[in-house]
């Protein structure tokens, strides 16, 4: 039990927050509300899972928010043009994958730092989305697209199904496959990974394509929720995606990844947002609380790291004292 808590430090605060909300509001524990929280968390966890790979590699992708917008626009305009649903979905995912590929190539082959490269694609893709829509909403009413968010295979909301499948896949990839090992190896020391013969550039490109794909899927989910696509969709989403991963305990400098943590991070953020809504607090508090949460999580991590380091030299005397007492 203590081992689980140590591995997933977010578990305790999450349960705590849920308990507080369960006591202080009478609506939090209603099935309808819990389902809302879970669906919102699922939608946020999907890009979080891909972003976990990116951060495990020690890099960021800032362009995911713009990808959401362009993918949503691509899908909606394909539907408006009378294309079949399957084609529209593929177009949206393809747009995401292409943006990821562009990021990966610019970063690995042209040697631009990830932060700046994805910052630039973020601006470019957002511009493309705004230019294509000319500032208008692309409104669709497609029951097929709606199914992505509102559908219930076996009575479970579709986003939750997607998130669970993807989280399982992500967990398996990062913990049980060669690719996952490679990603973490690059994160802990890229030069060493290169020296030991890993196809570093190809792995990095693959991860960016993965993040792009998840951005495309995120865009589809958001467009499915709103039944529209426009150039303003997904503003600031990149910070959400990164926050979720960092909250989950994936090391910021790479080398370690926790998919379970990411999923819990998404749950935590959406629980707090939901709780603050239920308590009728102004939206400003939501921002503040997410910010404080982020700082607190990292401060706790740092504190524990320091404690560990501090106790190391005199660990033996401490044990001796304990046994003596």
């Amino acid at each position, binding site marked *: 039990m203590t081992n689980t808590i140590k591995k997933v430090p977010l578990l305790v605060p999450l349960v705590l927050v849920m308990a507080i909300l369960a006591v202080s509001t009478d609506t939090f524990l209603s099935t309808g509300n819990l389902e809302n929280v879970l669906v919102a968390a699922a939608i946020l966890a999907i890009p979080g899972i891909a972003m976990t790979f990116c951060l495990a590699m020690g890099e960021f992708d*800032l362009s995911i928010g713009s990808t959401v917008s362009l993918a949503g626009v691509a899908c909606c305009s394909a539907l408006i043009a009378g294309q079949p649903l399957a084609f529209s979905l593929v177009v949206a995912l393809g747009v995401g994958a292409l943006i990821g590929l562009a990021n990966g190539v*610019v970063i*690995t082959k*042209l*040697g*631009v*730092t990830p*932060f*700046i*490269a994805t*910052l*630039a*694609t*973020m*601006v*470019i893709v*957002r*511009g*493309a*989305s*705004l*230019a294509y829509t*000319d*500032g208008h909403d692309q409104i669709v009413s497609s029951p097929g697209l709606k199914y992505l968010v509102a559908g219930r295979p076996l009575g479970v909301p579709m986003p939750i199904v997607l998130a669970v499948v993807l989280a399982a896949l992500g967990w398996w990839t990062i913990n049980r496959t060669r690719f996952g090992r490679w990603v973490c190896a690059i994160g802990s020391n890229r030069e060493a990974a*290169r020296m030991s013969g890993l*196809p*570093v*550039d*190809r792995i990095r490109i693959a991860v960016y394509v993965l993040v792009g794909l998840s951005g495309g899927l995120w865009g589809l989910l958001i467009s499915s929720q709103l039944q529209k696509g426009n*150039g303003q969709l997904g*503003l*600031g989403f990149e*910070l959400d995606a*990164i*926050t979720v991963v*960092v909250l989950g305990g994936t090391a*910021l*400098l790479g080398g370690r990844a926790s998919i379970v943590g990411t999923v819990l991070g998404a749950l935590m953020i959406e629980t707090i947002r939901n709780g603050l809504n239920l308590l009728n607090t*102004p*939206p*400003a*508090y*939501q*921002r*503040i609380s*997410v*910010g*404080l*949460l*982020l*700082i607190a999580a*990292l*401060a706790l991590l*740092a*504190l524990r*790291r*320091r404690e560990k380091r501090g106790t190391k030299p005199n660990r033996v005397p401490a044990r001796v004292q304990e046994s003596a007492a």
Partner: protein
Amino acid sequence: MSTQTMTEKPSEKAVTGRSSKVSLGRLWDTWGVTALLVLLLLCTPAIAPGFLEIENLQSVLRESAYVGIVAVGMTFAIASGAFDLSVGGQLALTSVVTLMAFNGGGTAAAVAAAITTGLLCGLVNAGLITRLRVPPFVATLGSLFVFRGIAYLLTQDGPQTLPYEHVDSPFAKIGSLNVAGLPVPFLIMVAVFAAGWVLMRRTAIGRRTLAYGSSPSAARFCGISDTRIRLFVFVLVGLTVGIAALTYITRVWTADGSAQDGFELKVIAAVVLGGTALKGGKGTLIGTFSAVFLVSVLNEVLVSQGVESAYQRIVLGCVLIVALTIDGLRTRFASPGSFRRALRPTS
């Protein structure tokens, strides 16, 4: 492998005469963006005839001032190997507090409030990083949310504004006055850049910041204190935000929590475009200065050509990638032995 490079190194140096190559690279580091800016300015009369009119130039200078001032602080931060992602939140919060102070106590109170709020924001960041040991990236990402949130809270009943009857107050004049044809915000910006340059090149703390940026552990072994560097850098960023807020708020006259969304990326882009290395250890204020104007002149030219704002973004993003690609390729080919490494397929 290692012995091979050991033996090859000197010969390569002798054959290619690396010293001249490095100095050319150095020249590009400091003056490359400035050269691009001059090139762009030389082209503008042909593309946009109205651009060189005095009024237009003044407005460009005025618009660039607040980005430029914060970019000075950010150059220090990035040179020390850290980002400050919270500058947008700081600017929003400082602007709101400044307007509240002005409406309560006049010009002196407003100026004092701007500087104090900026410094306090910087102190909060520095405290999070040095006391709580949160990595700068996350600490400032978190405080970005917090500062913006507080600014939203303070403006729940509508944005703070500068009432029109105060148009002749010394405070409002900061944004509108020209001295010898030069807008005051621009003069403030030049002063901040000059002070920043002296601080970076002529003082111990500036040198230490650069040293810390190029290798924190080496700097630590030399007796440079992390705490002091972090404190210096983040308080400096706060101070520049305080000064920038004065020129910003007297320009737009209104502020709420959403003021200047995405400001941090604008500032970081300018600093990096100017040639300051993201890895730290290398900072060039001349480059930052030119990069700020490169972006705003390019913007202005695009506007005058009737290019829509959506396409402006695309162009700016491409400029950023091209500039950084040149830099990336240059550093890749400039270090010894890297030529072969770059040509060799990595997979």
